[in-house]
């Protein structure tokens, strides 16, 4: 039955995009969105079915695609990602029903969005090289077009789209090279056959294929140093699209690395996985550092996506390292931790991006220095953002804590080990996890504290009102999931363990969950997140009750204490920049903020300044040291190449002739 559902998903998606293009204005958004939600529904049912039953669903037609035909095969590992994309898709689309900003109402946008969602649902199911690349490219192009929907109003959207296009296509090129290399060497396009025959490929082929796949999928996942497009493209994309990109599309990058690294190539030498761990650690620290010191809310969320992808890669790297040194049980635990972090990241990052878009629509800007006091003005979207923030900061009652704990456990149980690589990598991994956890807690204390609490800093924030119902229903659904998974992770963990088992082809003996608790098989000590949440609730209730009993008189509302000063205005509040300033100073050599002051002096004498303006900006280190020089290099090459075609027809024809001769010589 599930193959029929897969086909139904594809057809519903196409119908939705057709409807988006054809139906008249009034109906367009409603019809195309509901059809797409239908598609997500089908995919969700199919995914859950496969996760439950275990036997994969195969759909194969040679009609649509040349060479090897269009074939989908959804096993448990792919089904996990399909379910995540479906859930995030449904919530984002429900959100879209109420979302009016960012030019999403145009005909092209409502035609392309369903296509984008459908590709998100089908990529994990693709089971041969051509289908996978076709869907991958379709996903890249549709997301690029969606980023561009608002280019008419804002110039920087084009720049962001340019970065995004160049980076994704570079990644796609690396990906195509890698997969084609694998396909030609094993003589078949279908993933199943490649997986079988890849074992006895020469090592240089396996390593090149793996590194190319790592580059391709790493650029899509937003791992450093290929992350530069992420903080540019996500803030410019319209609300639901940036949520889909951050919560669903990025996971497919991690999906790809695990599918190629462990599925197709069946694990590899330790240096592969040390490289993955190194990339993960770099992304985690760099992403969390930049998100801690960034001022724009969506840019902050985008950098924290890079940070969370880093954590996922750390988990995947640790799992590969364990597998390559023989600790297969631990490898599964580490992979389960990484996949669990993928699931939970999709949930809380989705709710964060959606509520950030609600904030943008309500106040007109996402610049944290201009927000404030939104928790009272947006009584529903505010708490949703609060829940999402606490979840991503890995705080107990919510789901982020569970996956962070499991990641720490998987790294802890690698030690003590005689293998030097593990003995060194694990402590540093825990150190990186800890620093990233600390910085994320700092970031979201800032985002929530400055964004939602205190006095509103601009009249945009002053006049903010609650957004329309579908918007906070969509975001609220995901926030609810954050709490539910936080309290009862055993709903998700068995499915993730099966998925990890499928891809590493090793079914671990002990289950990870025993009723309410999670714990590693054969190790004393468990964690009962549900119990902790209950304990917290009871204690909070008791303390609040005690405080109520002790002093029953009403709370007196007064002016905040400002050392007896006359006026207490919003300008005296801390802003995101000042909140992050100590951290910027501590990590000055990594972030090297540029700070230029220009003072204008009064006419009479230079010693008295009339006004002084200070510009501080934090530029991405990779952008400055890696991409700017590359950019200048290409410019120089471009200029050189421009001098060759000087307009003479003969020279052009000569090129043709020379090319022809070269081809003939090569053929002979």
């Amino acid at each position, binding site marked *: 039955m599930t193959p029929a559902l897969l086909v139904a998903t594809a057809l519903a998606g196409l119908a939705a995009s057709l409807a988006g293009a054809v139906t008249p204005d009034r109906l367009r958004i409603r019809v195309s969105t509901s059809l797409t939600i239908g598609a997500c529904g089908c995919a969700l049912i199919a995914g859950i079915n496969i996760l439950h039953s275990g036997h994969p669903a195969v759909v194969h037609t040679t009609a649509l695609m040349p060479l090897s035909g269009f074939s989908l095969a959804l096993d448990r590992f792919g089904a996990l990602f399909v379910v995540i994309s479906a859930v995030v898709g449904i919530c984002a689309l429900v959100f879209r029903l109420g979302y009016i900003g960012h030019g999403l109402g145009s005909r092209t946008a409502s035609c392309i969005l369903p296509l984008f969602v459908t590709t998100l649902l089908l990529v994990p199911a693709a089971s041969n090289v051509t289908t996978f690349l076709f869907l991958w490219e379709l996903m890249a192009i549709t997301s690029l077009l969606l980023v561009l929907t608002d280019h008419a109003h804002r110039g920087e959207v084009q720049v962001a789209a340019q970065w995004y296009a160049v980076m994704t296509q570079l990644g796609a090129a690396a990906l195509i090279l890698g997969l084609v290399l694998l396909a030609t060497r094993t003589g078949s396009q279908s993933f199943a056959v490649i997986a079988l025959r890849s074992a006895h490929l020469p090592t240089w082929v396996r390593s090149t294929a793996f590194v190319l796949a790592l580059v391709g999928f790493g650029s899509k996942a937003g791992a450093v140093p290929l992350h530069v497009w992420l903080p540019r493209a996500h803030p410019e994309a319209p609300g639901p699209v940036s949520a889909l990109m951050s919560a669903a599309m990025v996971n497919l990058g991690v999906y790809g690395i695990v599918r190629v690294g462990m599925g197709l190539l069946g694990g590899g030498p330790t240096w592969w996985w040390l490289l993955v761990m190194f990339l993960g650690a770099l992304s985690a620290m760099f992403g969390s550092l930049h998100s801690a010191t960034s001022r724009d809310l969506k840019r902050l969320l985008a950098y924290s996506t890079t940070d969370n992808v880093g954590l996922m890669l750390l988990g995947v790297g640790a799992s590969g390292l364990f597998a390559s040194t023989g600790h297969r049980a631990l490898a599964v635990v580490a992979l389960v931790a990484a996949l669990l972090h993928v699931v939970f990241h999709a949930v809380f990052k989705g709710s964060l991006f959606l509520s950030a878009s609600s904030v943008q629509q309500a106040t007109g800007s996402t610049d944290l220095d201009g927000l404030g006091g939104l928790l009272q003005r947006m009584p529903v979207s505010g708490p949703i953002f609060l829940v999402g923030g*606490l979840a991503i900061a890995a705080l107990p009652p919510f789901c982020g804590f569970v996956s962070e704990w499991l990641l720490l456990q998987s790294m802890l149980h690698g030690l003590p080990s005689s293998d030097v690589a593990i003995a060194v990598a694990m402590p540093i991994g825990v150190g990186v996890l800890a620093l990233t956890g600390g910085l994320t807690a700092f970031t979201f204390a800032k985002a929530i504290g400055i964004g939602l609490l205190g006095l509103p800093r601009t009249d945009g924030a002053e006049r903010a009102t609650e957004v329309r119902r579908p918007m906070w229903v969509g975001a609220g659904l995901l926030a609810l999931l954050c709490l539910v998974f936080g309290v009862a992770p055993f709903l998700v963990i068995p499915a993730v363990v099966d998925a990890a088992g499928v891809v590493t082809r090793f079914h671990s003996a002990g289950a990870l969950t025993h009723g309410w608790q999670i714990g590693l098989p054969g190790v004393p000590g468990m964690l009962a997140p549900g119990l902790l949440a209950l304990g917290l609730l009871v204690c909070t209730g008791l303390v609040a009750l005690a405080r109520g009993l002790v002093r029953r008189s009403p709370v007196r509302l007064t002016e905040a204490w400002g050392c007896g000063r006359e006026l207490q205005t919003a300008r005296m509040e801390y802003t995101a920049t000042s909140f992050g*300033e100590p951290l910027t100073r501590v990590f000055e050599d990594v972030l090297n903020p540029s700070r230029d002051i220009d003072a204008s002096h009064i006419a009479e004498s230079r010693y008295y300044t009339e006004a002084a303006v200070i510009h501080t900006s934090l530029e991405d280190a990779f952008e400055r040291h890696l991409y700017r020089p590359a950019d200048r290099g290409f410019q120089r090459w471009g200029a050189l190449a421009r001098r060759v075609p000087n307009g003479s027809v003969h020279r052009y024809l000569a090129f043709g002739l020379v090319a022809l001769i070269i081809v003939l010589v090569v053929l002979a």
Partner: protein
Amino acid sequence: MNSSWSYVSIAAVSLLQVMLVLLGGPLLLGLMRKVRCRMEGRVGPPIRQPLLDLRKLAGRERTRPEHTSWVFPLAPVVLVATTLVVAAIAPLLATNPAFGWSADLFAVVFLFLLGSVSLALGALDTGTAFGGMGASRAMTIGALAEPALLVAILALSVPAHSSNLPAIITRSLAHPAWLATPQRVLALVAFVIVIIAESGRLPVDNPSTHLELTMIHEAMVLEYAGPDLALVKLAESMRLVVLLTLLADLFIPWGIATAPGPSHLAVALVATVGKVALLGVALAAFEVTVAKLRLFRVPELLAGAFVLAILAVLSALVVP
């Protein structure tokens, strides 16, 4: 956990632990204050002064800035609640408190982090410059202390093959030799530095300063009055007691009750109170002799703690 523990004794242990922390906290602060004054040549307030202060504060009126949301009044409650949960499940007096199997060292750290974040949010909600400044500094130090703390925990959990507190304590009781290894000593030093940073004692933060610009923890609570302030001060003292008790149990675990029965609990109570009082006095004496570090020298201190913790874990490689 051997099954000889009946439910009653487990519940009793947890209850006793909560009472110990609730009363012990303020008394410990009183004791430390007394030691400080004595070393400064003063008579100083009676040891039960913090209790008197709390009782008086409980009776005063609660105030709240107009524009604050529900986060401001909730923050101190969450702060106290997280400390209570840790006090209930962590093995302070006995190795098998209620739900002791779930008392994971990482969970304890994240519960404390939840408390700190909620206090910081409460401070930011006031919308004053002091609240923002206190929150920013406290979160920066909290973020930078996290690596040293978690890697130190890793160093402690590795020999016990689990990060569960009762497991670590029972294992280290069974192998006293572990306590002298360089791994433990380095982890101990890292732990002490982090405890000083987390609980806001000198040299990281001066709790008794009156100059707002030098405050870190104090600046966050300037707006709380009456019962809210009582909760904050209670939480502050409870966190210090819990951290010191954990420090004592992890590094000098003798005396902790490993079997049920009132006699064991009594011995454990005396031993723990003695150990924590000793650590408190040592901390107070240290505080008198040291001056407050500049805010931007604190990261260097925490980075040092992190390196010590990494050395602790790596030394497990060299010394078998």
